[in-house]
């Protein structure tokens, strides 16, 4: 068959994708990520590796969670010091202070969940002490933070 019959007519208009809507789409994505981002990352002063467990549950409402970090204190030069407790950005020296801090947090957020992020080489004694303080403060919902076992 002769191909000459099917010559295409090239139109005079330019074949370009309209890009005027692109900033709108980008802004929409941007706003989504701005809303979902939680920027409240604390600087960790203690070192910990979370233990692994199989039967874990997810905490969906991240806003309810308050963290307590327990592990060896980070020293200069990558050394590990004695076991310390960190709440928010500061190391708590006095056990009694935990009660006060957690009580204040509970007043602000009555559905507070305390997530304990404890180094897996710690001894349980210090966790017991923290738990006793939490009981006194009234923050009874706790969560031992663990990672999924592979």
């Amino acid at each position, binding site marked *: 068959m002769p191909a000459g019959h099917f010559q295409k007519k090239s139109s005079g208009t330019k074949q370009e994708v309209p*890009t005027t809507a*692109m*900033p709108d789409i*980008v*802004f929409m*994505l*941007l706003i989504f*990520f*701005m809303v*979902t*981002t*939680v*920027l409240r*990352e604390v600087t960790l002063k203690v070192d910990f590796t979370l*233990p692994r*467990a*199989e*039967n*874990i*549950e*997810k*905490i*969906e409402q*991240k806003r309810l*969670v308050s963290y307590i970090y327990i592990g060896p204190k980070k020293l200069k030069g990558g050394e590990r010091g004695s076991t310390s407790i960190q709440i928010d950005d500061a190391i708590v020296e006095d056990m009694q202070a935990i009660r006060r801090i957690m009580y204040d947090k509970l007043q602000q957020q009555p559905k507070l*969940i305390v*997530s304990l992020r*404890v*180094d*897996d*080489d*710690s*001894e*349980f*004694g210090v*966790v*017991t002490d923290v*738990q*006793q303080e*939490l*009981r*006194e403060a*009234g923050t*009874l*919902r*706790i*969560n*031992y*933070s*663990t*990672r*999924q076992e592979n």
Partner: protein
Amino acid sequence: MFKDTKKNRRDEGGEIEGSALADIAFLLLIFFLVATTIDIDTGIGLVLPPPPDPSQKPPPIKDRNLLKILVNQQGMVLIEDEPTAITEVKQRVIEFVNNKGQDPKLSDSPQKAIVSIKTDRQTPYKVYINMLDEVKGAYRELRNRASMAEFGKKYEALNDQSRSKIQDMYPQKISIAEPDQGS
């Protein structure tokens, strides 16, 4: 006066250039993409008992309804004072909770069964978590079994109403014993 200060406007170039807007938005977008952490927190949930009231006596619990698990300082797990491998904990808890009055040494009913966990101050945290994981696993299996029998679905796939029904059948009663003083 007023007419003198008035600027001569040109017809072209009176608009703000809009093409850079997309670039700026992209830059911000990439920043937030990088800064976002979508990792969901996972862990083992537990509800602590309220602080003990010295004026009130603890309610009497029949010995058969209490499964005592002790994790000692060497990281050994003892169920009712006999050493148990950590892999056996799950089976033991299932037997204990799901006894339903058959064995006189084990629980009356799943509603009455209480798993009591006790630790030493020197207990390694890792062992404690492993043990708690096993106990949670036992309850999860029991609930899954019950929900398969009742609704033909896994416990996780149930809606809230049927889920609470299963929860009533197998309430998770895990008690953290008062820690020993000293040592």
